[in-house]
């Protein structure tokens, strides 16, 4: 599989990080975000394993670069929608580990007041309009949010996150067609991690690239290294600023890889399809590793400073987790009170 992917993606996909247009402050901010997402997901993983967290958690360790890049480009009134694997999407926008932890524990201080769990996160104040686990369901919803943006005529955009699995749902095709014909300001972000649940993309689709669906609907598209934070940031900055001025959809296909199994704390390396060898390769292309090594090499940060950031994050994650454990469960009356307005 590994060799096939190289042939098809081309050897040019994985480039050295190019630090030319980034200053140290900006880079540290993004590094902090990626490390925080990673640490938060590890905390969740550990507590799924020890049984404290009961709800299904889909972890995105390995995919931290994509939401980090997008979160840096968000403006007021933008509307972002996630899916089942959205902890990173959420945290990239608000760094709020407490409300995420409380939510996965079903506590009233959670971002969805304890009614959503891991699969239903929301923070409208910080542009995150919701994540849901029905595969592909937020694609037309984000498209409709882009229609609202178009009515508002204020240069705001919608972002729809989904995976390569969702590209097998018919609703993607309907949404791309609608966005194209109506010229809606939306970025479709396909995080192509090469897997749906346990099944590899080459066993489900005749082609590795999901962006072919965009081409069919005359939606501009681009395939990109989803583990290269700086290339993602630079490219998306250009695309998004273009869409703000001239509303239309764009489809970005970010190739990446998740380390964990489909759901839960296990690696599920050789469940269904053997992927241990692939994982070894993808760990060498890990976005945080590439960023830190590049920053050190370019003298933009020292080993010691990275350690300090990690310590700060560990402290935040541990104390937010403790606070979330102490938060209360929703009261019984809320079960019915939240059904209607």
């Amino acid at each position, binding site marked *: 599989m590994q060799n096939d992917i190289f042939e098809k993606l081309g050897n040019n996909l994985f480039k050295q990080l190019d630090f030319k247009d980034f200053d140290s402050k900006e880079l540290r901010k993004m590094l902090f975000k990626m490390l925080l997402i990673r640490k938060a997901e590890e905390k969740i993983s550990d507590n799924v394993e020890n049984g404290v967290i009961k709800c299904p958690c889909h972890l995105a360790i390995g995919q931290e670069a994509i939401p980090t890049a997008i979160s840096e480009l968000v403006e007021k009134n933008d509307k972002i929608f996630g899916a089942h694997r959205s902890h990173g999407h959420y945290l990239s926008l608000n760094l709020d580990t407490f409300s995420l932890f409380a939510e996965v524990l079903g506590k009233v201080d959670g971002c*969805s007041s304890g009614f959503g769990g891991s699969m239903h996160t929301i923070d409208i104040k910080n542009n995150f309009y919701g994540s849901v686990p029905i595969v592909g369901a937020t694609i037309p919803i*984000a498209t409709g949010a882009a*229609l*609202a943006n178009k009515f508002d005529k204020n240069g705001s955009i919608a972002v729809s996150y989904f995976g390569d699995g969702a590209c097998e749902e018919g609703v993607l095709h309907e949404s791309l067609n609608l966005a194209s014909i109506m010229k809606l300001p939306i970025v479709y972000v396909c995080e192509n991690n090469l897997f749906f649940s346990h099944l590899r993309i080459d066993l489900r689709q005749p082609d590795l690239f999901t962006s072919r669906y965009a081409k069919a609907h005359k939606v501009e598209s681009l395939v990109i290294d989803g583990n290269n934070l700086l290339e993602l940031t630079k490219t998306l900055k250009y695309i998004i600023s273009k869409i703000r001025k001239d509303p239309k959809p764009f489809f970005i296909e970010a190739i990446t890889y998740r380390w964990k199994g489909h759901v839960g704390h296990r690696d599920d390396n050789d469940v269904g399809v053997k992927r241990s060898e692939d994982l070894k390769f993808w760990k060498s292309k890990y976005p945080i590793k590439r960023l830190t090594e590049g920053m050190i090499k370019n003298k933009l940060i020292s080993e010691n400073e990275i350690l300090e950031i990690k310590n700060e994050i560990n402290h935040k994650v541990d104390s937010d987790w403790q606070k979330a454990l102490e938060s209360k469960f929703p009261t019984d009356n809320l079960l019915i009170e939240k*059904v*209607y*307005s």
Partner: protein
Amino acid sequence: MKKLKYSQGILDAFHYLLDHHKEFFVIGQGLWSPWYVGSTMKDLDKKYGKERVIDSPVSEIGVTGAAVGASIAGYKPLVVHPRVDFMLLAVDQIVNQAAKWRHMFGGKSSAPATFRAIINRGGEQGAQHSQSLHSWFAHIPGLKVVMPYSPKDARDLLISSVLADDPVVFMDDRWLYDEEESVENDFELIDLRQVKPNILKEGNQITLVGIGHSSKIIMDAIGSLENISAEVIDLRLLNPIDYSVIIDSVNKTGRLIVVDGDWSSCGIASEIISSVCEEINPKSFKSKPVKITLTDAPAPTSKPLEDIYYINPKTVTNKILDSINEKID
């Protein structure tokens, strides 16, 4: 006062909403066509522009999802499904998404879109062009289901549905489009949360409950029963239901017939009867409750079968007489 036709009531509601609510827009198939949605949306695109009255690709789930998304973003969209049958392609967006959006996000967001589904049957259209399925949708917590029988309700409850802060399935029936009623000129702005079943006619011998078009069947059926004092109740809002009006009525009459133009199994007629039975003293029934529904079969195309498939007012008349004459030992 003026005479209002049911179809004109719907059209008037659209004019009202487009005139008074800039966050309101409509989207769906056939909106720029003169024949798709009958006269209920005639020339709206010409008056209000094709940006707010949007004819759409043949993409039920995509378009419905877009309306759900726009409603989450603060707009008040209404999606038109010219036939209920085709709306089934959009059920994920209605049932999994819109209906649950408020609850699953702990009240932090909501998806107050309106899904207008037109019931369009008869005329040998068959199994996939004739469904109503209102009981299906009324099963879903978070979703409101409105089925107007009267021209005034068609007008005023359409406005209520759109302005509600909850997602609403609004079902109007083509068999009612030519019904007429004398109404006040002005719209009555009704909060959908306050809507209860409507007593169309007071009486004390038997309670007859209808839903949408079946309320008309009941009114036609009692025309020939001048000697029987029937109380007729039009349900109007199918979810959530305020049962107090029906329970009070059955406590008074001791007899209950529910007429529903949909299938019997797990249907709204059964739901109404069971909810009433749970609340009243069994001894106060003077006859067994009765439901009159479609046969549990897909809609046929052949005319003679269609004639026995749909509910005939005569059947209702006979069941009323049976119920009045029945003696419970």
